[in-house]
C-alpha cells in the first residue's frame, strides 16, 4: 500500500494547472512575506505558512486566516527566487479548507466564494446585490448603514442595476457546469 500522503503532497495535489516549483524548494528567504501587502493582517506570513505545511502542521494551517487574507496579487509569485507560485498555493489552501469544511470561524471568504459560484451556476452572470447576504452580517449595524448609503448613492448615480442578468443559453451552460461539479437544482 502506498505510504500516506504528506500534507505538502496533499496541497500539491490541489493544484491542477499551476506550474510553480514544489514548496520543498522554498529557501525560507522571506521575500514573499516582505512583499505581501496583506501580511500584517495574516495570522502567519506566507513564508511561515510554507514552513508549517512542510512541517505537517495541518491543524494549525487549517486554523490560520493567512490564505483567506490573500488578495491574489501575485506579487510574491513573480519575486520568489525559488520559482514557487505562492499565490496559486494560497488558492489551493482555500480549496483544501473548503473541501475539508474546516476554516477559522468568522471568515467571509468561504461563504462569499460559495455564494458566488452558486450565483454563476444559476444565471451565468454575476450581480453584486445578490452577494450581499453572504457578507453583510459581518460588518454590524454601522457597516450595514455605510453599505446601504453607498448602495443608495450608486443606484442614484445610475451605477447599480436593480435586476440581475442571465445568459440566454443557460440550460446548456448548466449542463456544462454539471460535468465538472454537481450542482443542485439552482435557483
Amino acid at each position, binding site marked *: 500500500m502506498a505510504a500516506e500522503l504528506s500534507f505538502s503532497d496533499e496541497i500539491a495535489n*490541489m*493544484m*491542477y*494547472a499551476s506550474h510553480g516549483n514544489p514548496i520543498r524548494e522554498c529557501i525560507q528567504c522571506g521575500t514573499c512575506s516582505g512583499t505581501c*501587502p*496583506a501580511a500584517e*493582517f495574516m495570522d502567519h506570513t506566507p513564508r511561515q505558512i510554507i514552513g508549517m505545511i512542510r512541517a505537517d502542521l495541518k491543524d494549525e494551517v487549517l486554523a490560520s486566516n493567512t490564505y*483567506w*487574507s490573500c*488578495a*491574489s*496579487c*501575485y*506579487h510574491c*509569485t*513573480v519575486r520568489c527566487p525559488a520559482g514557487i*507560485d505562492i*499565490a496559486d498555493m494560497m*488558492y489551493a489552501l*482555500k*480549496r483544501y479548507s*473548503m473541501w475539508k469544511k474546516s476554516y477559522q470561524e468568522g*471568515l*467571509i*471568504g*468561504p461563504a*462569499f*466564494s460559495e455564494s*458566488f*459560484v452558486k450565483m*454563476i451556476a444559476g444565471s*451565468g*452572470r*454575476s*450581480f*453584486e446585490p445578490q*452577494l450581499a447576504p453572504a*457578507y453583510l452580517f459581518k*460588518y454590524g449595524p454601522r457597516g450595514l448603514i*455605510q453599505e446601504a448609503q*453607498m448602495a443608495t*448613492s*450608486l443606484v442614484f*448615480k*445610475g*451605477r*447599480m*442595476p436593480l435586476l440581475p*442578468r442571465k*445568459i440566454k*443559453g443557460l440550460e*446548456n*451552460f448548466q*449542463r*456544462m*457546469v*454539471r*460535468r*465538472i*461539479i454537481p450542482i443542485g437544482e439552482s435557483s
Partner: protein
Amino acid sequence: MKQYAYYPGCSLESLAESYNVSTLEVARGLGLDLKEIEDWNCCGATAYFPVDELLAYTLVARNLAIAEKDGASDFVTPCSACYKNAYFTNAYLKRDADLADHINYALEADHLHINGTLRVRHLIEVILEDVGLEEVKKNVTHPLKDLKVAPYYGCQMLRPRKDHENVENPQFFEQLLAALGADPVPYPSKTRCCGGSLIITNRKAALDMVRKLLEDAVNHKAEVIATTCPMCNINLEVYQAQVNQEFGTQFSIPVMYFTQLMGVAMGLKPKSLGIGKEMVPGVPLLNFAQS
C-alpha cells in the same frame, strides 16, 4: 479590417458601466472594431478558484471557445481580472493536453470546443501595440496639458506574467498618458495591490491597502488616478469615503478609467464617456473637456 472578440465582463455591465461606454467610444474613434462575444458568461474573477480550479478554467474557456467559433483571432478585455483569467486559461490548456481534454469534455455539453488559438490581450495592450502611440497622438484634439495623472497598473494586468517588458517597473501606461499630453507622476505604489476582492472578504485589510495607494498618489501631487481595471477603480473610488471614515483622512482624488482620459483628449463628449457618475467628481479632467 481586423475584428476583435470583445469581452466586457460583468462589472462593465453595472458598477463600471462607464468603462464600457468609454471603451466603445474610444475604440470607435481609433477605428478598432470590437465585437462583443455572444452570450458570454461571468469569468469568475477571483471567486471560483477557492472552490474548484477546473470549473474556474472551464467557465473562462467557454467565452474563449465562443470567440474561436466566431472566427476571431484576438480576444480583448478591458478588465484586468478577466484578462488574467483568460490569458492563463488559454496558455495552460495549450501546453497541457490533459487539461484541454477535461475542459473540452465539459464544453461539449454546450456544443463548444476550444483549441487555444486565440491571442488574449488587455485593451491597453491593443491600443499600444495595434493602434500605436503615434496614431493615438494624431487623434488628440484636447491635450491634457500638465494634468498630473498617477498611472495605476494594479496587479492582474502585469502578474503573474513574467514575460512582460518590466514586471516591477513598467512604463507603458506613462507613455500612453504622455501621448495624451498629460504629465504622468512617478510614485512607488503603481503596481501595488488595491486589495481586490478583500474589499468584500476582509474589508479592514483592503481599506488599509487602498489608503496606502491613495496616500502615495496624493503625496506625489497626482490630481487624478487612472486605472485599467474595474475592480481597482471601484476599490479606489467607491470606497474612498469609507477610507476617510475609517482613518480620518480627507482624500478626494478622482479615479478615472484610462479610456475616459483618452476620450476627453480625443475631444469626445464627457457624457458619452460615462463621466459624471463618479463618487468623487472628475473635475480636474473635465477642465479639458470640450464644451
